[in-house]
């Protein structure tokens, strides 16, 4: 395992994996420079890549930008948690009861087909200019993918496995706990990942409409001052925030839904085998004694 990781990180392999995206980046930056160089676009509208980098560096060394980053991060994370909690809270009863499904389903779809950004000004009117209005906007946008995916996950849990649980006399709670929850996790996580990205969108949209702090506010300010290099730098920051959220979700997914990832499975197999061996050694090192009858009559 460790050897495998080392192997994956060796310079040769890294180089082989990284050259295609890096090449594309070089082409992109080259075209960008060229467009400014030949005056296809004005430097006032599209800054030099170099200037963007300088702006980025200066911004992250300033004091104020970290408050904005913190504000946007807090709004999107809190909004994501709230939206995901609402999605789960409504999807689980909908998944387990057809009546609940018929009761909630149409409204979830109605909420989905409504451009939810249109609700944003209303929410700001209700919840004020502070963080809470952005959190609610992010939550409303993040809600739907969690709801739909969790519901789908629950409804598509293998019918034969459910029958097996029934034939083993499992209670409803046991079936939920040991079959429905883990069985719906993979699809649920697809929804959570989408929702994490959308919550950032929600937070920024909220900031566009009205806010005192946040990266969305910064982009708007810089753009209106035609400080294009600064605006681009803030957008880069938003990208890194998005990457951070995505990375966290990706990691959570790999840890939780470990059975879809070969490397995790192998590692877990090893750990369990080692633990079992230790247990055996603790019990005196004797292999399990065969029972007189194989099938215990309970």
């Amino acid at each position, binding site marked *: 395992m460790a050897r495998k990781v080392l192997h994956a990180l060796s310079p040769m392999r890294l180089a082989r994996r990284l050259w295609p995206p890096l090449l594309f980046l070089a082409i992109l930056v080259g075209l960008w420079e060229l467009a400014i160089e030949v005056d296809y676009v004005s430097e006032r509208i599209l800054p030099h890549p170099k200037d963007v980098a300088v702006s980025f560096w200066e911004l992250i060394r300033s004091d104020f930008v970290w408050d904005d980053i913190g504000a946007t991060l807090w709004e999107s994370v809190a909004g994501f948690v709230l939206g995901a909690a609402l999605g789960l809270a409504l999807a689980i009863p909908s998944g387990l009861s057809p009546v609940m499904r018929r009761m909630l389903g149409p409204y979830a779809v109605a909420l989905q087909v409504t451009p939810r950004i249109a609700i944003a000004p209303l929410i700001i009117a209700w919840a004020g200019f502070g963080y809470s209005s952005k959190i609610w906007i992010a939550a409303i946008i993040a809600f739907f993918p969690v709801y739909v995916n969790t519901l789908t996950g629950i409804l598509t849990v*293998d019918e*034969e*496995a459910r*029958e*097996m*649980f*029934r*034939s*083993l*006399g*499992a209670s409803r709670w*046991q079936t939920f706990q*040991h*079959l429905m929850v*883990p069985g719906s996790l993979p699809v649920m996580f697809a929804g959570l990942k989408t929702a994490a990205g959308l919550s950032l969108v929600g937070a920024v949209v909220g900031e566009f409409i009205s806010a005192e702090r946040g990266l969305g506010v910064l982009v708007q300010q810089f753009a209106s001052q035609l400080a294009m290099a600064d605006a681009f730098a803030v957008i880069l920051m938003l990208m890194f925030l998005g990457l951070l959220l995505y990375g966290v979700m990706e990691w959570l997914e790999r840890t939780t839904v*470990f*059975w*879809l990832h*070969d490397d995790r*499975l*192998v590692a*877990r*197999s*090893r750990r*369990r*085998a080692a633990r*079992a061996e230790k247990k055996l050694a603790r019990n005196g090192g004797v292999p*399990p*004694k*065969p*029972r007189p009858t*194989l*099938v*215990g*009559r*309970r």
Partner: protein
Amino acid sequence: MQEDSRALAKPGLGGGPSAVGERGEGTILAENVTKEFEGGVRALDDVDLSARPGEFVSIVGPSGCGKSTMLRLIAGLIPLSGGTITVNGRQVTEPRQDIALMFQRPTLLPWQTALQNVLLPPKLGKNLDQGAERQAYELLDLVGLSGFEHTYPRHLSGGMQQRVALARLLMVGVDVLLLDEPFAAVDQLTRERLNLELLRVHERLSATALLVTHNIQEATLLADRVIVMTPRPGRIADVIDVPLPRPRAPEMLAEPEFQELVLRAYSGLQIPLVDEGDTRQAGVNGA
């Protein structure tokens, strides 16, 4: 249980056990079983079926003749439309702990190791202890999976997954095993090996087994009795006693006595021998 003995004595059930263990552990008794699904599909029509303790009974028949339905009824997973089913002397009305059922697919939990999957029945039955764990190790060994206890299903082959399912079935620790085409999803070679393993396990455990299969040779080689069913509506066409000695071995396939039994099963299925795979003609080509 007067009715039980009447049914057991019914002619045509072939080898109907006499006085032996009508109430004993491992008795299956189905009388006048009828199952009509919503929409009017009559899957089973007045079917009688019985199995003595420790007996191995195969059910063969073309697709759609109600074999799976029969097993699901015996397992108490779906309600009867008519008739009665008694297992271990008690009428079946709901899924019961003393009946174990194995499906065509392994239906293992992918987030659990082979060992954890085998330990599912005691876990759900709240009697997960050291003894159960020891027994799970033994059963995995019995089905030829020692060394794979801590492997996850994703890293097991199809045949190995079926063996885990078989070990899990045996873990239920009951006298009645219902097997619905348990090895249909694996290749011919693996399937033959698994069948022999099933035989070995059955001979050691003395549990009653009811095996559904499409393969007449397989049904005959494994069973004490072969029940031949025909579709639309599902009925029993023939019950064939298999007086071959145990332990059974694949070499018996070549014996003339065996061949005769197989031929009889084919004629029960009304399948023209030139075209034995085509079940669509089963009903039409009445001999």
